[in-house]
């Protein structure tokens, strides 16, 4: 019995990584866990071996253009071709928009992949407001804006430990939407200034 935690974000420091870290806290000590980072188009031979050796996979992935990032679609095809085991697969999709429900298509794509590849889809969690996850202060689990996310991850951890399926659960941060929107927009203005530009460059149209 082993769970592979697959981080499908191309970024080194990502919301997907922080979601897996939180999930791991709820799994710790109760089952062996292995972590993989699929940040490129190709999955290494070692990582494929880890996948073959585990009976449960949890994929944490950012939402890109309403679906799965292109590089991870390549990984999924490769895994389907090269890993002929029958794991239970769970998904955690986080997105920049506030509403967690916007991740449902990406979860559906993971489910379709499982159907085609003879893996068992175990359901997952869709997290809205993911853009803020990595920058939120680290509080006790279940406290602060991340509380609804922690609760969903705790439920998912229990499902994974029991090795059973669950319904997809969609959550947002416990933080008002208009403030999330404002904070993001301040963030973009700060970022472009740090890069030597000014706020109105954000509106640039190329001809």
């Amino acid at each position, binding site marked *: 019995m082993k769970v592979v935690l697959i981080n499908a974000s191309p970024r080194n420091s990502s919301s997907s990584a922080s979601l897996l870290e939180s999930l791991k806290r709820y799994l710790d000590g109760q089952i062996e866990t292995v972590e993989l980072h699929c940040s490129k188009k190709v999955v290494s031979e070692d990582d494929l071996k880890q996948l073959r050796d585990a009976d449960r996979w949890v994929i944490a992935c950012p939402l890109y*253009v309403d*679906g799965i990032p292109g590089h991870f679609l390549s990984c999924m095809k490769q895994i389907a071709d090269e890993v002929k085991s029958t794991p239970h697969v769970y998904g955690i999709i986080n997105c920049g928009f506030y509403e967690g429900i916007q991740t449902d298509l990406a979860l559906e794509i993971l489910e379709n992949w499982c159907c085609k590849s003879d893996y068992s889809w175990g359901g997952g969690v869709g997290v809205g407001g993911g853009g803020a996850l990595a920058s939120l202060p680290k509080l006790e689990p279940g406290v602060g804006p991340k509380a609804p996310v922690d609760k969903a991850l705790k439920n998912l951890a229990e499902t994974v430990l029991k090795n059973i399926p669950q319904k997809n659960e969609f959550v947002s941060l416990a933080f008002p939407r208009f403030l999330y929107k404002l904070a993001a927009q301040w963030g973009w203005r700060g970022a472009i200034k740090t890069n030597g530009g000014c706020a109105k460059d954000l509106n640039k149209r190329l001809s």
Partner: protein
Amino acid sequence: MKLIIADIENIPFEVHGEYKMIRPQEKIHNCIGCFGCWVKTPGICVIHDGYETTGSDMGKCSELIVVSRCDYGSYSPFVKTVMDRGISYIHPDFVIRKGEMHHKRRYKNVIALSAYFYGENITEREKWTAGKLLKANADNYDGKVKEIKFFESIEELEGIRV
């Protein structure tokens, strides 16, 4: 202009009128999630491998035509990577449309989006997902869906009229 994103080198049908085609000629690098196309070089991707202008190409088109293998109800990795690399078509700021958060427009053009999916054994469920994906993309681009069709093979694409 029509913008065509295809995952095959040679599409087996003719395109009428002015168009630009993005296809797998050069190796494509995946999006690295840096948002540089919004906050470093607004409008252009920071990875200069021949695919960096997708966002601004989208800003010039009236129709976006996708020709793609259907993988699990998604576009294929190549087509999806091109689309990931093209998010500078939209503006980083958020707006609320129909009760949901989306991005503001950067350009004024309204894109009519069509997709021609091919592949053996595309399941009904995958077709359903692909249809929703197209609709979701159109919502995020603040455009509209024009047409979606599924084909068993690349050869069958011959029947397409665009």
